[in-house]
């Protein structure tokens, strides 16, 4: 008769808290928040914090994302256009659906920042006494100056040509890299106080003078000198330098290229020369001694060139050239594949004695470039010379230290490697000045992104990125239950008929909406994005959060070490370790 008597129903209600039961004493494995390295960042020569950049972009924090890029790379507008994006080929998402369009997102963020006229007050180290001379305003010199400025060093850039930019200004056509983009990046570097001395060629005498008046000299004048083909009958008139052709085109000239031209080579320069000729109204064919799939040029660029009317002839090597009725006659030897080279490409040999003759109007060589002066090249290993992956330091009595970088020292010669070189050189010099020569190697090692050789300036400066584990996150470590297949964004392009007759930029911007969606695809490998799965899943309410990421922690009084949090972490930002951790 309990109800009728007005008794309360008997329900299992308790006012006791479970706090007295310290379940943490049961634990033998301990969860730990631990951010790790993403393969894209390790794959980026500039070591950009891509997982973090995309996480910020996904939240619409475009400015913060852009700043995060600039911490490691002063040229996002350039790299968002002309970098060969090795980050994408190692992206873990490729094993799920398709890699993140890091390249398109970088360009979006760079353009958005320029469009919104964003500026940032950079936290720079206090001004140092040493003033540095940087020779060459190419990507290596520009980034050297940027990072030196961050580290507190005043510096001056000496550039032979009338404008800064190096290969970016003079060697890459406008349809791939508009001038305004480059100029705004250079302006941002100048805003840090870097003095730009253009029309100021350094010859060996002035070089020695610089070594006396500056505390150190960075030599990064690149490989701007086209290599000759080395064939019979070759003269500077009969075989023209492809890089020179591009330089003149970008100076506003219209170099002679009417009729039919052939371009010898398989790199981006060869493709750019041929496409520039097409835009000037000429016809062009690329002749390459290997096959299309062996060409170092970007596959997309080759495909677009062919769409635009450029011809491609594979497995032919020039052997002689002569004048013929006012035109040129090129003798070519046919090649064939036999076996394999060390790099995996097919090994080429002469196809017997087969030859072919071509009567044409112009020949351009684009088979590689060298330093313009022999003394640009770094000295061979000897006492006083210290070699690194992307630069060489020369210390000798009677002059300030010289540090060689960019194409002069890099095995792979491209913009991203040049940036890596400038960054490494800045770190080497700073450590040398601040801590002495013996600490350089260990200091660099502490800043390695993943398994290297990319370096992080944020880590060098003692930022939070330096606290990450060196573990490189593998695809299998991502909990893909929390991700859905989504289509990768496609960068829009000018139609072939619109682009083949003008130098207008071909690649068009993606929308902010596409950028948000694309950034949202990113696994952010190894990085906590505060998804709160750990908080939601923890059966002991032992995950404590109080506002921001730094305050997210585990209450080890109650964490019983069950590991649910680590299992349900989509991004492998939590690990289970022994109690000793």
């Amino acid at each position: 008769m309990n109800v009728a008597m007005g008794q309360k129903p008997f329900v299992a209600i308790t006012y006791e808290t479970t706090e007295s039961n310290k379940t943490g004493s049961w634990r033998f494995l301990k969860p730990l928040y631990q951010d790790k390295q993403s393969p894209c960042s390790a794959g980026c020569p500039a070591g950009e914090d891509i997982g973090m950049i995309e996480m910020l972009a996904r939240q619409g924090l475009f400015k913060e994302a852009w700043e995060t890029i600039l911490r490691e790379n002063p040229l996002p507008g350039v790299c968002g256009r002309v970098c060969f994006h090795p980050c994408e080929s190692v992206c873990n998402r490729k094993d799920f659906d398709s890699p993140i369009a890091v390249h398109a997102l970088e360009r979006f963020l760079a353009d958005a920042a320029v469009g919104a006229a964003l500026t940032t007050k950079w936290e720079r180290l206090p001004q140092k006494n040493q003033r540095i001379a940087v020779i060459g305003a190419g990507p290596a010199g520009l980034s050297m100056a940027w990072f030196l400025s961050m580290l507190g060093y005043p510096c001056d850039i000496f550039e032979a040509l009338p404008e800064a930019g190096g290969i970016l200004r003079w060697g890459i056509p406008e349809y791939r890299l508009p001038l305004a983009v480059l100029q705004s990046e250079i302006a941002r570097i100048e805003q840090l106080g870097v003095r730009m001395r253009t029309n100021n060629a350094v010859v060996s005498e002035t070089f020695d003078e610089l070594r006396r008046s500056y505390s150190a000299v960075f030599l990064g004048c690149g490989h701007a000198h086209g290599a000759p083909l080395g064939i019979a009958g070759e003269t500077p008139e009969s075989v023209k330098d492809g890089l020179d052709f591009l330089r003149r085109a970008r100076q506003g000239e219209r170099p002679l290229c009417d009729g039919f031209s052939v371009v010898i080579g398989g790199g981006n320069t060869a493709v750019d020369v041929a496409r520039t000729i097409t835009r000037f109204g000429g016809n062009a064919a690329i002749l390459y001694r290997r096959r299309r799939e062996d060409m170092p040029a970007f596959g997309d660029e080759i495909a677009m060139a062919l769409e635009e009317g450029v011809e491609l002839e594979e497995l032919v090597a020039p052997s002689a050239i002569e004048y013929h009725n006012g035109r040129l006659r090129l003798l070519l030897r046919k090649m064939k594949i036999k076996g394999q080279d060390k790099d995996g490409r097919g090994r080429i040999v002469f196809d017997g004695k087969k030859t072919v003759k071509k009567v044409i109007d112009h020949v351009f060589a684009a088979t590689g470039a060298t330093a313009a002066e022999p003394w640009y090249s770094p000295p061979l290993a000897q006492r006083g010379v210290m070699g690194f992956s992307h630069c060489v330091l020369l210390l000798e009595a009677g002059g300030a230290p010289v540090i060689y970088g960019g194409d002069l020292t890099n095995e792979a010669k491209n913009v991203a490697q040049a940036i890596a070189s400038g960054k490494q050189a800045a770190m080497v010099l700073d450590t040398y000045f601040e801590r002495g020569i013996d600490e350089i190697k260990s200091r660099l090692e502490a800043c390695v992104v993943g398994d290297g050789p990319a370096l992080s300036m944020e880590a060098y400066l003692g930022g939070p990125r330096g606290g990450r584990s060196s573990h490189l996150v593998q695809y299998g470590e991502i909990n893909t239950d929390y991700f859905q297949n989504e289509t990768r964004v496609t960068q829009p392009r000018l139609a072939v008929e619109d682009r083949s007759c003008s130098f207008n930029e071909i690649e068009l911007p993606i929308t902010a909406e596409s950028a948000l969606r694309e950034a949202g695809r990113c696994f952010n490998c190894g990085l906590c994005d505060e998804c709160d799965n750990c908080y939601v899943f923890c059966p002991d309410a032992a995950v404590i959060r109080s506002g921001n990421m730094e305050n997210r922690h585990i209450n080890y009084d109650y964490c019983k070490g069950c590991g649910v949090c680590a299992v349900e972490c989509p991004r492998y930002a939590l690990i289970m370790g022994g109690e000793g951790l």
Partner: protein
Amino acid sequence: MKQVLEGNSAVAEAVRLARVQVISAYPITPQSHIVEVLSDYCASGKMDARYLRVESEHSCLAALVGAACGGVRTFTATSSAGLAYMHEMLHWTAGSRLPIVMAEVNRALGAPWNIWSDQTDSLSQRDTGWIQLYCEDGQEVFDTTLQAFRLAEWVNLPVMVVTEGFLISHTYEPVDIPEQEEVDRFLPPYNPAFKVDTKNPFTVNSIAPPSIYMEIRHDNAMAMDEVPERFDDVEKEFEVLFNRRYGAVEAINCDDAEIILVTSGTITSTARLLLEDLRDRGEKVGLLKMKMFRPFPVEQVCRALKSAMKVAVIDRNFSSGAGGIFLQEVRAALCNREDRPLVFGYIVGLGGRDVTKAVLEDIYKMTKNSDVPSDKSVWIGLREVKHAIGR
């Protein structure tokens, strides 16, 4: 005022007048009209209630358990598969002693697909601790829904008001809908036995080890045992205000009957017609309407059936391996009584098959002409069919 209303609307009107505060439901034929009307009322402000959209019936009842713990009056409606999906939460509701009221519109369970009336869905939930009240027409549905809140909140147990797919849910008939003030006199605001309070936090349904689980269950059992009596109290109050009452069971002409038909739901109405005919012909027949199924009103049933020689239990439901479910309960109720009648069981109307007066008359005749009941329920009106499988 009397209005011509669909059965589902009669439920919705009762919920409106009961001033329910939180409603949650997941649509399913033939119940959907109830919550369509109620969601309109919530949206338009005709009701001052929160309507919670949920992704499943399980979540629906889980949400209501939470709401009821917060001390508000709650309601849901479902049918068939939806009720089956709630199964676990049905136990939780009763175990938590929360007075949630549900309209359960009988519909057959699959397989195969069937949307028509069949009581197996609600009867399958007989052990979940819910009070179950079966109705035979729109007026009874309306009245019972109002009574359900009063009863549930008195004994702290959830109530399932059971109606029938289409036969009630989609049938229009006159229903007397009282004014709000009259309903307010019958049903005071909900005064919860407990409610969660963030200022003085406590845990509801924390673990109860073997040392206490049984006592909690026993308290629950005692509350359930009281239900017939409390329901009678509720009906008395209701009758004073509205001049209608139904009873946990309704015994019609049972005192002198030799054969008594036992029915529930809409079959009762049709059986009332038959009863008039048979009585006119001098047959000594009675009718026992089962309104309350849980708790099973053993005393009322035994009292009603005590003078009969034979009882025919008519089930629009089926427990495979045991037969009609009302049959089992009636037999169990009688088994320890002296001079108990013979109990015959019949299965009719599964999956919405029409149960006509002729069908019921056949059952009466079969019962009258049989001396010994079968252990199993007898299936009425089966057609000769060739099985399709294998062709």
